[in-house]
């Protein structure tokens, strides 16, 4: 079956403490033409600062997707989600958060389900398959890709 690669105007935010992973994931997303704007942070706290400022000054500029790592020093993925929850509903409505981690721990999967904003759990590496799933995914279904 032929999959037509659709071009999207998505804005994607990558949060991973490993710079290399952010670089690699950016490349993958670029190749898939999944987004027109990709930004990344190695520190979840700085990501929050950016998101809060977008909420105030440029709501349309809020990302459509966030790929979030779990295990990070300073502020981990869960601590980020606790803060993310507190942002405005209107500005969060268009944003889908996906956990992207090397963890295979089922507890992490369960935890990710407890956040309404998290739409899925994916295991690294970020592949074409994952992006295809996300493209076609129904927004009310939680997806697990491992």
């Amino acid at each position, binding site marked *: 079956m032929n999959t037509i690669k659709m071009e999207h105007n998505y804005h994607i935010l990558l949060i991973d403490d*490993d710079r*290399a*992973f952010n670089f690699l994931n950016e*490349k993958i997303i670029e190749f898939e033409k999944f987004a027109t704007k990709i930004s990344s942070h190695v520190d979840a706290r700085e990501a929050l600062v950016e998101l809060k400022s977008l909420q105030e000054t440029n709501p349309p500029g809020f990302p459509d997707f966030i790929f979030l790592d779990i295990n990070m020093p300073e502020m981990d993925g869960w601590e980020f989600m606790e803060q993310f929850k507190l942002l405005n509903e209107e500005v969060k409505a268009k944003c889908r958060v996906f956990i992207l981690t090397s963890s295979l721990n089922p507890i992490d999967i369960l935890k990710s389900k407890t956040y309404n904003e998290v739409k899925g759990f994916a295991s*690294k*590496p970020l592949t074409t398959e994952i992006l295809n799933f996300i493209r076609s995914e129904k927004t009310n279904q939680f997806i697990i890709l491992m």
Partner: protein
Amino acid sequence: MLLTLKTIHPLLEQHLATLPDSFTQNEALQNFIETVNEAYQKFDRDRESIQHSHRLSDLEYVEINKKLNESTDRLSLATKAAKMGVWEWSGVTGNIIWDDLMYEIFGVTDREAFGKISTNWFKLTHPEDVPKISKKLAHINTEEPTMHFEFRIIRPTDNSLRYISASTFLSVDPKKQPIRIVGICMDVTELRLAEKEKAELLENVLKQNRELEDFAFVISHRLRSHSSKLSTVAHVFKNPSANESLQKELIKEVEKEAHLLDETLKELTEIIGINDNKSTDIETLNLQTIIESAISNLQTAIENCNATVEVSIDSSIQVYAVKSYLQNICFQLLDNALKFRTKKKQLVVRIVAEENDENVKLSITDNGIGIDLKRHQNKLFGIYRKFHTHIEGKGIGLHLAKKQLELMGGKIEVQSMLNEGTQFNVYLKKA
């Protein structure tokens, strides 16, 4: 006297002697007096025959006595064998009666001085247990005549803490009034201490199990992070859009990751490996010497950050330790103090050693950035746990140090306040 009685009963004689002659010599009353005499005599005869029929023969008496003694001996031997002290408290007199074993269990040597007052044994009871015993004893009633309780005493003979198990039985009279309490006491100290030890052992095993699980989890996660990185690189590499310059960068990434993987495996080997090293290399070491060599190894770093290291360790302090472990522990803690300093203050590290009979306590205190113990307490000594992105390190230093310390029979604890500083206390075995 007009009496024609053959024999006059002594009692009657007594009575008649008190009466006037006019009465005793009255003809009409003679019959009456005779009847009374006969009645007294019959009573005497009846009484004698009853006593006679119920009198134990000497033989019977000896036999019964013998059986009674045998029974008492048996009971006595049984309670002695079971080390049960038997006691009795009289509701009437308030006195207590103790057998020999009771005095032994409670460590009372001067029985006279101890006396028979029922509250005296209370004085031997551990003060914390007095309220609960009083409550229990107050609850003894005819509905619940048997009761069982445990309490601790401070045994006077050696001032030791003993665990006593007691059982009581309330005995009542036909009107259901309590008349006495009978009971037994046993010294169950050895049993209780063995139970405590077992519970501690179990807790230790469970704790080690949890640590092991945590360790396995973290290691597998670590390895997975390497493999997922390599998969991601391959995925990007294969993509037709990947040009030559990108590919060159990706190869570098592969090299880097392969190197990190190699290091992870080496660390793994080291950490797992130290469990095999039994305590054969334990020797007597001079603590001051070890600390000074750790300082000299970090001399350049100390000078570079303009830190002051103050050492207060008596040159006589010796410890039992594995040399390479102790060196690593001292190095690690000092290195941490240097790494986690704050730019706002000049770093001061204080290294102090105190000793008591069994242990030596080594304290390393810094005035650095401190640790958020509320958040990180449980993960601090875990493997690959880092809390700061910008400070180099893998997150295994403290883990290794703790493992090595525990293998030497020591332990480590930490106190810290964010932005104030941190103190690590290391407990070592004194030589």
